[in-house]
């Protein structure tokens, strides 16, 4: 893979080292001459000294030949403009924009920079997933948070325990994609029995996650009422 890494110092150094090991072709853009010398000396890569928000920089490095662009500068606006150049004018397939201000993650994504990431944003998402739900539920998200995968451990007090999926009347807005019953992994059908201590992996949209968890965790006693 051919990769352009624009801006950043220590972050750039780390990413160059990670990708270089895998035999990728890397070119670096940096507007600071000292940083450029440091990155070139440390990693033996080509470094272009220039402003990543100028079109001629991309023409000089022949950017249209590259597959991945990563903007790492400390200025969110500069990263946005650099990604636009790479994406719109030089058709680089995948552009990753890092931002300092977590609010810019949603903003840049809605403006078409699909791979916008912020360490603070990622941290807050991780905390939300760990603390928002109790210990028996773990979640992960995919496709820019539009798909949620929830892992729920079944207790024998739950009303769906010891029932088949059909009998449990599992809601249509969620899908049990997999059941982990140590040491087995079961791809379930309607007739599959849900047992206590099973771990259900349920795919849903984020809007329906809470309703689904409430359904699964409904206690047997409530059911009789």
């Amino acid at each position, binding site marked *: 893979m051919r990769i352009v890494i624009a801006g950043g110092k220590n972050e750039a150094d780390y990413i160059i080292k990670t990708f270089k090991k895998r035999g990728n072709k890397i070119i670096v853009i940096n507007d600071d001459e000292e940083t450029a010398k440091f990155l070139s000396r440390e990693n033996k890569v080509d470094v272009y000294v220039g402003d990543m*928000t*100028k*079109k*001629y920089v991309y023409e000089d490095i022949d950017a249209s030949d590259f597959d991945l662009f990563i903007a790492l500068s400390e*200025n969110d*606006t*500069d990263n*946005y*403009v650099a990604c*636009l*150049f790479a994406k*719109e*004018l030089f058709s680089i397939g995948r552009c990753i924009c890092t931002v300092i201000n977590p*609010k810019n993650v949603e*903003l840049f994504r*809605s*403006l078409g920079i699909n791979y916008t990431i912020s360490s603070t944003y990622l941290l807050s998402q991780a905390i939300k997933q760990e603390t928002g739900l109790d210990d028996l539920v773990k979640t992960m998200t995919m496709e820019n948070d539009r798909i949620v995968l929830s892992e729920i451990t079944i207790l024998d007090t739950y009303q769906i325990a010891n029932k088949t999926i059909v009998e449990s009347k599992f809601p249509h807005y969620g899908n049990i994609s997999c059941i982990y019953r140590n040491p087995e992994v079961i791809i379930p059908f309607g007739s599959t029995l849900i047992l206590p201590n099973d771990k259900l992996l349920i795919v849903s949209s984020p809007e329906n996650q809470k309703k689904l968890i409430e359904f699964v965790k409904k206690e047997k006693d409530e059911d009789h009422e």
Partner: protein
Amino acid sequence: MSIICVVLLDYKDGVIIIILMINKSIEPRIKRQRATFVFGCSHLGASIANLLNEKDEDVIIIDQDIFAFNKLPESFGGLKHVGDILDLNFLESVEIQSAKRVIIVTDDDNVNLLSSHICYYIFHIQNVYVRLFDLNKGELLTESKIKAFYPFTLSRDNLISLMEEED
């Protein structure tokens, strides 16, 4: 709120007249609906805001630096707001979505470009004008109806026309 009280005494007839004037707000009466927003109170921004205001347009000018408003004349009747034009919450608080037009003239091309995209794509404002020093950045606006103007071409064209007047 300010209250002005005028007391007139007529001793001959024993009449006392009291006039109370209550002014609820000293803020200029600007309609935010259909107002022109100017982003950046540079010399150009201040001049455009004042010119439009003199033509009886409702004008709202925004800058991050309160001292930038010193460039406006005292007679300026528009609204002045201190804030970040890249902050969506701030823009919503000044009701940007009901703007008639937005003119973006901060000194940073990249800020201007991002700001124009926010106004056009997020708040769906159809009349967005943006100053860009770098002609190439205008190529990033071709998918939209955002209108860019360039000091580079204006200066060049002005010089050419001045040279045409040579004897």
